[in-house]
């Protein structure tokens, strides 16, 4: 009798387990489906956001506004007929006429480097090498003077290095900017 009871309990538990197992499958499916739905709705929301942002951008940058900005600051104009090249041969022939002055290259338009920007670097080196002698002679305020001199030497050395290394890579005006920058820094430290 007792054995029979255990047996039926066992059957009961087993069937419950199986039933639960069967129940879990659709639950899992439902959960996945919900996740998918959520993703789909997120995508839809993202699309809506993209659309709203696009529309906002289009509205803020509408053609009337762009024209106004162009008129205020950029002042770009439509290219003239002479700026169009009909075929590759004409384009190639433009390079051939380089010497006669009819074609102006962009580099000619860039403001050229003023002479004074480069030249002072060399006297700066000479003073730097000269001054330790003076300092040794006077033996007054040694620390400060040495510091000054080192700064100057470093500054002029840097300027030279920049000039030597990058003259080929950068335009003259860029190097000019760099040089002015280093000189200005050196001046401040002094």
């Amino acid at each position, binding site marked *: 009798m007792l054995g029979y009871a255990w047996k039926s309990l066992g059957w009961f538990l087993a069937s419950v387990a199986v039933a639960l197992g069967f129940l879990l499958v*659709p*639950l899992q*499916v*439902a959960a996945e489906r*919900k996740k998918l*739905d*959520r993703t*789909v*709705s997120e995508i839809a*929301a993202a699309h*809506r956001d993209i*659309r*709203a942002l*696009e*529309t906002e951008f*289009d*509205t803020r940058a*509408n*053609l*009337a506004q762009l*024209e106004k900005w162009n008129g205020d600051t950029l002042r770009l104009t*439509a*290219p*003239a*007929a*002479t700026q*169009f090249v*009909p075929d590759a041969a004409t384009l190639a022939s433009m390079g051939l006429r380089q010497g006669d002055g009819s074609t102006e290259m962009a580099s000619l338009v860039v403001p050229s480097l003023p002479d004074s920007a480069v030249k002072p670097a060399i006297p700066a080196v000479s003073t730097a090498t000269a001054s330790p002698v003076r300092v040794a002679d006077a033996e007054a305020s040694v620390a400060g003077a040495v510091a000054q001199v080192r700064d100057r030497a470093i500054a002029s050395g840097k300027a030279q290095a920049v000039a030597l290394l990058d003259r080929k890579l950068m335009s003259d005006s860029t190097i000019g900017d760099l040089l002015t920058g280093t000189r200005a820094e050196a001046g401040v430290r002094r």
Partner: protein
Amino acid sequence: MTALVARPLPPRRMTGQRHALVATAHVRLMMLMLLIAAGFCLVIGRIAMLGLLASPASAQGPNFGSLMRGDILDRNGEPLARTIEAWTIGVHPAQLLGDRHEIAEKLAAAMPEHDAAWFYQRLTLPVNFTYLERHASPDLVNRIHAIGEPALVFAQEPERLYPQTTMAAHVLGYIGPTAKDTRIMGRAGIEREFDQRLTDPNQRGMPIMLSIDSRVQAAMESELGRAMTSFKAKDATGVVLDVNTGEVIAMVSLPVYNPNKLAGTGVDALRNNVTQSVYELGSTFKPITMATAIDSGVVTSMSRRFDATEPLHVGGFTIHDDHPQKRFLDIPETLIHSSNIVTARVADEIGKDRLAAMFTALGFGERPTIELHERAGPIWPTYWARTTVMTTGYGHGIAVTPLHLANAYATLVNGGIWRPTTLLKLAPGKAPAGRRVLSEATSARMRQLLRLVVTQGTGRKGEAPGYRVGGKTGTAEIAGAGGYSKRANVSTFAAAFPMDAPRYVVVAMLDSPVGNAESSGQTTAAWTAAPVVSRVISRTGAMLGVLPSNSRDVDVSELMPLLWHAPGEDSADPE
């Protein structure tokens, strides 16, 4: 003595009877249990159904789909009209908890376009609900939310937005309710014409692609707007038309309105002058008359000369030239000097039937064919007297819309095929076949003649370097009470480019311009409308795929010997 009082025994039921009662009770209990079980099953089943089948609440959201309208795009896919979800801020005045003055102050601080008094008035309205702001930014909504008043409510509502504001307003139209009809639907332009298509659930996902090129439209609007302001013109119109397909690339009517904000718009601004207003377009009709003469064999030789030595007197009328040459003029010279006298003589030779037939063939007898509801019928002469034939030859006595004129010019230069104009982008190669109005040879001749008018004649200021423009000026006096006004005129320049293989027609028209220093005090088309066309072509020609070239042009060498120049002739003598 003990007396026992016993409760009298109830009469005992029979055993069978008791069994039956128990059985009934069992049956009832069973039924009750089944009912309860069924109830549980129902609830569990419903829960299972919901769990398995229902979509998450977040996925449903507010369903804008049913309220959406389709987008309207230009030919390059730039949005011209869209429906977006805009935040609206409203209030239930009766449900306000906080101090109304305080809330009004805070609202005014957040929305500076109205003052606190205005908001206080809104907060005390005796209504259940009222709007405070229709087009709020999410940021503004957050700030209003921070006030913490539960009676202030927010909602996202679909809203029609025209990102380019006033651009192409007359083409797009607007939506909204009217005084008689409270439904929000298209009330003008494309919005009205394609209302069904834009709101149809099956079709609104597909945007409508217009033939308009927004860059060209913007250039035309800015140039025309500048000219209109400069010359204090009453209104101005501009059309750019593809000559080979009939697609309208730009359609401008000024003054313009903002479809985003219609309140306070005048009737003048709402009218689309390109399709709704008719004008006597004057000398721009002369090339049409000449084309008719050439095509019908009235004029077989370009060198045929007509008498323009003195004004022409016909039936009480006198036809003058604005710039009398006082000599015999051949056909190219007639167009270059824009001679009314010679054109009238040619029209007289053509005769009523052939001229009217040509006007009919060019569509001047009916409203312009375009996908707009706002179209006006031309004013056609009621009686064709001999003088009527003569005057219509140079564009007086017949009034058509600027779109009619643009399409007629397209026919003149495209090889002689008339096609209906359209605002919808056509797929490549899907242009309508159209109908032949002029012969190929006549059209080729017209290209030469129109180019000559620009290089040698009244249209010089319409030239755009490299784009080989050809066209004709027209300065018509405005008919009013008591005859034609000598003061006010309609200045038109109708042009096509590039003349060696025409692609586009550009028409610009200024109504009643006032001369100023820029135009040397002139109000004629050469000084007012032609520069607009020149600038528009210079700005947009390359975008439209026309490569400017100074080495190409239509061959006019055979006509050049026909032009006679007076010694010391002033080359700048535009009509």
